[in-house]
Every structure is written in structure tokens, then in C-alpha cells.
């Protein structure tokens, strides 16, 4: 019994923090339909502000008010006002991308403002490691005591407010049915803002409470907290607050118990503790009926018709040809410059950009064309790279290894697709995220796969008598792969599969009604996408020649989705632009030091915020703007040249429409 308690008690602070943040997630989800992943970043910011304030000699209560009561809710309100208010009726991807962008951008902004110095966490109420009393001869530390007491008080207050006060009644009505609440005279937007402020406060509180457990305040710890909170929210079906709270606390406790009772030393025991919440998340998503497609209706879905999906406008022939020629010239110049003009490290940068473009193509196929959200594309890339590396160690030629890497990743993609088949929308994304985290924490650590932190070496290929060891030769090889895969995806888009995927993206119910085998199509999409990512990952391994599982962790998956969505997720060109842009910006930013080192995350994180207004991506939007001007100019010139019926020809050659606007 004493042993049991000694394993159980350390789980309580985790559990309380999970429960608080999970309650916040559920509140905002019900009030605005947004699954706000940025709470992870808000928890980090609150913990950081609190610690800094305390270390500057502020009284604890003042620091608490500033960091938790003011800063975090202010941040949440700003998000609601400026961003998520406009995504109410949008699809799951439009709601997810800005939240992911914020999750990535907020820590990097914070770092830029306050610097990168290590910050020690400050305790909120009691000294974290001081022992106050014993339960069944297990020491109860200040951390456990204070988090438990604070959580119980806060949750109790919430319960009282929800039960008795007018504000609670309004909140509950908005949570139950925003449309009905509005008809009954409740201002749903104001109440939804209230829900955002309250849940942000919870997130901040969770951050401040949990911070003292870690040796320093770092944003990655809070992302782990976020994922565990997602699992707790999934236990509650994104609906029930009591179940969510119980789920959070249960999760924290269970993960410590498992760690305690498993034999120590093995990868399973060291990996299972961090991976446990993700396993729970996966099980909860698959098991609960609320996440089924069809059943998993967005709470806001019945409010208004959704915003139209993006489609590129048809262009005048002259302009379309002109832009194609222009792109071809730019691409050729880049290739020529890479081979002839630029210094060696830039050659690497462009090659990296091309390899990354291949990985990004997998997102174009799956998310852009098929509308499926995947947050484990980097894991598929990793599977490809690790396969190539392992095969190389067993004397399989690396050229073959790269292809087999694609094959293995494809198999993995099909396996991941299976449990997602019953799910819809955001739940698919979350399930793939839990797979990514499982791979990071368990699967990739074994010697037979990723070999843990020591990693693998991947040689450059040699096919027949041709060696691709040189950097120029490898550049050509990568370019060849990109062209072949890019053309293949483009052909797919114009073919049967592309049209079926577009139908799937448009409406899954209608797709089934016209006779599309939706399950098969989703498996095909995941398999092809994973294959492309796997080949890209294997090429990356061969490019850098030494890889470790950490090169493919879940954070890359999140960043990739954000980058591609920000630049342009609907076209092959978008994937290439995203890949090259990312590589070039990364190189430019890498010359900066210190606090600006995370500028890249900030750039793409902020770019993702434009996704709400411009789902085609900022680069695609920019191109479209330029082409609009080009069309005006062409028309003007044609009229100036006095061509009879110039305008009529133009009108006839153009398709009439370019969308209703959102």
C-alpha cells in the first residue's frame, strides 16, 4: 500500500494540470468549435511571466494576478476577437491551422522579447520539494499539496458558478447550443469570449502549477502537457466537464503508476510513461461514439453554411501562359544558380529545400486534395529515412533503400489510416498526432528502428557506375525525384483519384451517396501520402548522412502542416514553394543569433494566421494578386491596340467566376 501511494501521489500534480487545461479545451471547443492547441503556448507564457515576476521581487499574489488572471485571458480574448471569431463556420482545417500557428509562434515571440536565458520556475504556493506530511508513510510534497488544493478550489468555484449564477446559465446554454442560446437572447459571441477568457485562465493556471516540476521553464514541456490534456478532453468526449476532469486526474495518476510498476531500464518503461497519454488519446478517440464521422458534427455546424472551399480562378490565356513561362524561368534560374553561382552551403540549402518539397507534397496530396488532416507526416518521413539507414547497415544499396523506405512508410500509412476510418475532422488529426508521439517515445527508440539518440548513418547513393556522393550530383538526384513525384501528384489530381479526393473533401456523405468507397479512398490517400513522405525522408537522410529519430519528431509534423498551409496547400507548386522558402529562410535565420533564432517559427506561425482569410496560402494569394493586375494590364493593352471586341474575347476566354468570397 505504501508503495502504491508512493507511485500514486506524484501523479496528482500532473493530473490536476491536465484536468485544468482539458477543461479549458472543452469549454472553448463547445463555445466556438475551435480546438485551441495554442493553450499549450499560453500555459508556457503564464509560467514564464510568473517566474520572471517572482524572481524580480514581485509579491507572489501580484505575479499570479499579472500572469494568470490578466495576461493569459487577455491573450485568449485577443485570439477570439481577432481570429477565431471568423472561423466559427469553417471546416476543421481552417480552425486547426491558426491554432497550430499560434502554438508555434507564441513561444518564439516570447523568446524574442525576453531572450533565451534559462528561466527557473517559481512555486506558486508552497515550496515544491518540501515535505509537509505523510499519507501511508509516503511524503506529500508542497507541489502535490498546492496543485491539488488550487485545482480543487478552482474547479469547485467553476462548479458553483456553473450551477447557480446567471453567467453560468448563459455559459451552459451556449455550450449546449449556441444557436438556440442566441435565439433566446443570450449574446453568444460575448459568452463565447467569456469562455475563451476563462479557459485561457485555466491554461495559464495549469502552466504555473506544473512549472515547478521541471527544472526550467521550456515550451516543449507544455506541449506535452497540452497533448495529455487533449487525451483527457477526449475521455470526456469533448463534451462532459466532469468526465474530462476525472480523465485528466486519472491520466496523471495512471501514468505514474505504470512507470512505477513497470520494470525499469527498458525502452518500454522509459518510453511508456511519456507515451501513455497518447495511447489513451488514441483509445478514447477510437472508442467514443462522439468522434465518429457523421456523429462528430462540429458544434457550430448548424449555425450557418460553411465558407466556400478555395478554388483557383480561371485565368486569361495570355496571363496563364505568361505566368507558366515566368515560373519555369525562375525555377531554371534557381537550378542554374545552385549549380554554378552560389557557395557550397547554399547548394546544400537548395537541395534541402527540394527534399523538403517532396515531404510537403505528401501534405498537398492528403490534406490539400483529400481534406484529411494528418499530424504525423514527419513520422512517415522518419520511417522512410530509418528504413533506408537500417537497410544500408545490412549492405542493401541505398538507392534501393530509399525506395523501400517509401514502401515501408506506405505500409505504415495504411496502418495509421485504419483506425481513423471511423473518425471525422479534427479527430483524425489528433489520432495521427498520438501516433507521431508514440513513434517518438517508443517506436523509434529501439536499435532496430531509430536507435534512440545515437541515430543512424545513411550513405549517399551510387547507382551502377554513377555516384551521387557529390553535392551537385545529389542535387540532381533530389530534383529528379521531385519532378517525378510532383508530376505524379499533378496527374493524380487531374485523374479519377483526384476528382474522388475533391469529392471526399467536399462532402463525405455525398461521396458515399454517389458510390465512392470512402474507406478505401481514405486508405489510398494515406498510403500514397505516406509513401511520398517516406521517400522524401529517406532522401533527407541521405542528404545529411546522419539521422536520429529526433529529426522527425512530432513538432516537425506540426510545423510542416503550418508551413504548407501558410504557403499553399492546394497545389503542387505550393509544396515546392513551401519547401524552398522554408530551407532558404532557415539558412538566413541560422546566421542570426540568440533570441532571434526562432524567427523562422514566428514567420510561418504568423503566416498560418492568414489561412483564415486566404486558405489558398499567402504565396498563392500573392501570385493571384499579381496575376489579377497582369490581367487588367493585358486587357488595357488590348483595348489600347484597338483590337475590335477585345473585351468580349477576354470575357469569353475567361471563366466567369472566382468564388463568392467568404
Amino acid at each position, binding site marked *: 500500500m505504501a508503495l502504491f501511494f508512493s507511485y500514486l501521489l506524484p501523479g496528482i500534480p500532473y493530473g490536476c494540470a491536465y484536468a485544468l487545461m482539458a477543461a479549458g479545451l472543452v469549454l472553448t471547443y463547445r463555445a466556438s468549435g475551435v480546438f485551441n492547441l495554442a493553450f499549450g503556448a499560453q500555459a508556457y507564457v503564464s509560467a514564464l511571466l510568473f517566474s520572471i515576476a517572482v524572481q524580480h521581487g514581485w509579491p507572489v499574489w501580484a505575479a499570479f494576478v499579472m500572469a494568470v488572471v490578466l495576461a493569459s485571458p487577455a491573450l485568449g480574448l485577443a485570439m477570439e476577437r481577432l481570429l477565431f471569431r471568423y472561423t466559427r463556420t469553417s471546416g476543421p482545417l481552417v480552425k486547426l491551422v491558426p491554432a497550430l500557428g499560434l502554438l508555434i509562434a507564441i513561444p518564439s515571440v516570447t523568446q524574442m522579447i525576453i531572450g533565451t536565458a534559462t528561466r527557473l520556475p517559481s512555486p506558486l504556493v508552497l515550496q515544491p520539494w518540501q515535505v509537509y506530511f505523510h499519507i501511508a508513510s509516503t511524503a506529500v510534497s508542497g507541489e502535490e499539496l498546492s496543485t491539488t488544493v488550487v485545482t480543487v478550489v478552482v474547479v469547485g468555484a467553476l462548479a458553483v458558478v456553473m450551477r447557480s449564477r446567471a453567467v453560468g446559465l448563459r455559459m451552459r446554454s451556449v455550450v449546449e447550443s449556441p444557436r438556440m442560446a442566441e435565439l433566446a437572447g443570450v449574446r453568444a459571441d460575448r459568452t463565447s469570449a467569456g469562455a475563451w477568457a476563462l479557459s485561457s485562465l485555466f491554461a495559464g493556471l495549469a502552466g504555473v502549477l506544473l512549472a515547478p516540476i521541471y527544472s526550467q521553464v521550456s515550451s516543449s514541456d507544455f506541449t506535452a502537457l497540452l497533448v495529455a490534456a487533449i487525451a483527457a478532453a477526449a475521455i470526456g468526449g469533448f463534451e462532459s466537464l466532469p468526465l474530462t476532469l476525472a480523465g485528466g486526474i486519472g491520466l496523471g495518476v495512471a501514468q505514474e503508476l505504470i512507470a512505477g510498476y513497470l520494470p525499469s531500464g527498458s525502452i518500454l518503461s522509459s518510453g511508456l510513461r511519456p507515451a501513455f497519454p497518447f495511447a489513451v488519446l488514441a483509445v478514447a478517440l477510437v472508442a467514443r461514439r462522439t468522434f465518429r464521422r457523421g456523429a462528430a458534427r462540429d458544434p457550430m455546424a448548424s449555425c450557418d453554411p460553411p465558407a*466556400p472551399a478555395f478554388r483557383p480562378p480561371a485565368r486569361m490565356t495570355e496571363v496563364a501562359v505568361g505566368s507558366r513561362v515566368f515560373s519555369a524561368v525562375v525555377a531554371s534560374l534557381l537550378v542554374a544558380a545552385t549549380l554554378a553561382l552560389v557557395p557550397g552551403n547554399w547548394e546544400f540549402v537548395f537541395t534541402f529545400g527540394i527534399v523538403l518539397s517532396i515531404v510537403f507534397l505528401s501534405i498537398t496530396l492528403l490534406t490539400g486534395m483529400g481534406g484529411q488532416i494528418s499530424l504525423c507526416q514527419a513520422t512517415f518521413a522518419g520511417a522512410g529515412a530509418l528504413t533506408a539507414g537500417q537497410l544500408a547497415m545490412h549492405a542493401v544499396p541505398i538507392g534501393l533503400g530509399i525506395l523501400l523506405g517509401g514502401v515501408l512508410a506506405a505500409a505504415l500509412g495504411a496502418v495509421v489510416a485504419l483506425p481513423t476510418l471511423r473518425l471525422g475532422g479534427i479527430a483524425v488529426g489528433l489520432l495521427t498526432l498520438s501516433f507521431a508521439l508514440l513513434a517518438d517515445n517508443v517506436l523509434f527508440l529501439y536499435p532496430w528502428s531509430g536507435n534512440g539518440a545515437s541515430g543512424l548513418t545513411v550513405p549517399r547513393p551510387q547507382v551502377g557506375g554513377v555516384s551521387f556522393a557529390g553535392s551537385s550530383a545529389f542535387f540532381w538526384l533530389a530534383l529528379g525525384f521531385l519532378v517525378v513525384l510532383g508530376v505524379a501528384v499533378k496527374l493524380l489530381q487531374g485523374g479519377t*483519384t483526384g476528382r*474522388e479526393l*475533391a*469529392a471526399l473533401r467536399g462532402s463525405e456523405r*455525398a461521396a458515399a*451517396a*454517389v458510390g465512392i*468507397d470512402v474507406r478505401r479512398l481514405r486508405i489510398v490517400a494515406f498510403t500514397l501520402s505516406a509513401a511520398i513522405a517516406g521517400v522524401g525522408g529517406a532522401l533527407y537522410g541521405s542528404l545529411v548522412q546522419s539521422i536520429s529519430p529526433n529529426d522527425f519528431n512530432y513538432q516537425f509534423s506540426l510545423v510542416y502542416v503550418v508551413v504548407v498551409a501558410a504557403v499553399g496547400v492546394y497545389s503542387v507548386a505550393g509544396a515546392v514553394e513551401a519547401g524552398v522558402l522554408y530551407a532558404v529562410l532557415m539558412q538566413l535565420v541560422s546566421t542570426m543569433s540568440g533570441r532571434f533564432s526562432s524567427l523562422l517559427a514566428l514567420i510561418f506561425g504568423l503566416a498560418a494566421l492568414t489561412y483564415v482569410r486566404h486558405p489558398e496560402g499567402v504565396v498563392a494569394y500573392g501570385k493571384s494578386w499579381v496575376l489579377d493586375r497582369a490581367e487588367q494590364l493585358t486587357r488595357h493593352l488590348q483595348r489600347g491596340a484597338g483590337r475590335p471586341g477585345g473585351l468580349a474575347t477576354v470575357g469569353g476566354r475567361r471563366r466567369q*467566376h472566382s468564388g463568392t468570397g467568404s
Partner: protein
Amino acid sequence: MALLETAGLTKRFGRVVALSDVSLRIDHGEAVGVVGPNGAGKTTLFDCILGVQTPDAGSVVFAGRRVDRLPTFRRSLLGIGRTFQRLELFSGMTPREHLLVTARVRAGGGRLWKDGVGLGRPLPAERREAGELLDLVGLTEVADVPVEALSLGRCRLVELARALVGPPRLLMLDEPSSGLDEGERATLVSVIGRVRQERGVVGVVVEHDLELVTTVVDRLVVLDVGRVIADGPAAAVLADPVVRRAYLGAGR
């Protein structure tokens, strides 16, 4: 032989019995309207026939084949076209694209390798069928406009045209006139009439709007609280006192 036959179809949601022992027979060439007050089980019947819901008991036989264990898309491929009460269009796609993708799927789909070598583009025959259907429902002028830009009435016509690709052996329309104004409704009625004439496709129409139903069907089935309370020629059914009591309200 009947085209569609349900026997003893029963579906419960918790304690609510949505369908209770519904046996229905639709022959080739028939147009049948299913009417009834709200909550009578019309949409549940529809869903059980189409495979959106699984019935608790009973069977569905379509064209001599038991289909009640088949997934929705297989039933669709056997030749059932449908429209939705709440619009389910492929967002972002034009009416023509709606029809082109459906035509390909109905013809048995494509092969992945054909896409990979560029052979997956729409075939001339598919383009022709799409063009003819767009003419039939009168959407040719907006054929290449994304559906988001169309009025509700036109969206319903897109759904109708999509359900007609193939062509189907059975056409099922779920409340096709809901949310339409007078003009749009008149267009819908004339389009359904033309569809019957030119294509000979029959259908089941689930509808609230008695006036519309009686102009487009010959036979009426009246549901009330999950049971069939009347089944026969439209005029006779509407004169039936049981129907009048249950549906139209006594005293009228």
C-alpha cells in the same frame, strides 16, 4: 418483380420507435410519395433503404438482391441515386465537376495506374452525359460556377442532376422542395416532370409538401409514428379518413 421491397423494417432509437414493421413494395416504372407528419419516420425509412442507418429488424431487397447489409456506396452503385434534405454538395466544385466525378464512379471508377500516366481525365462520353444532364435540369449557364455561388434552388437541382447520373434505376428524393420559394419550387416540379418523361426514372419522394407530391407521383404511402397507415393511389389515400385524422388533422 418489385424493384424495391422492404419487409418488416424496424428501427428504434432508445425508446423511440422510428419505424415499426414497415413493408413497402415499389415496382418498376412507379413514382411513389412517402408522406407523413414530422417524426413519422420518413427520413429513417430513407436512411435504412440507403444504408445510412442499419435497421434493427427487417430486410431491404433491391432489384432482387438483399442489400440491408451492404454499405451505402455499394447500394448506390447498384443503381440508387439520392438527394439530401440538407444539402450535401461537394464544396468548391462546379456543377459540371459534380457530374463528371459521379459519372466516373458510376462507371466503375478508375485505376490508380491510369491516373499516374495521365489517362484519368474525363472521357468524352462522360462529358456528354454531364452536358445533357445540365441541359435537362437547366443549369448549363452556371455549369462552371462553384456551387457556393448558386442559390438554394439551383443547388437542389445540382443534387438532382448528380442523382440522375448513370442513370439510376431508383431515384430517391428527400424533401426536394424544403427551403425553396414559389418560383424555385415551380422549376423543381417542372424539372422532375421532365426527368420522368425524358429519362423514365422513377422515384421515391419523401416530402412534406403534399401539393408537390401529388403532382409528381401516382401512389402515396402515409407514415405515422413509424407505421404505414395508408398506401394507394394518391387521390384515394388523401380521401381516407384515417389519413385525414392522423395527418391533415380532423375536421378539415
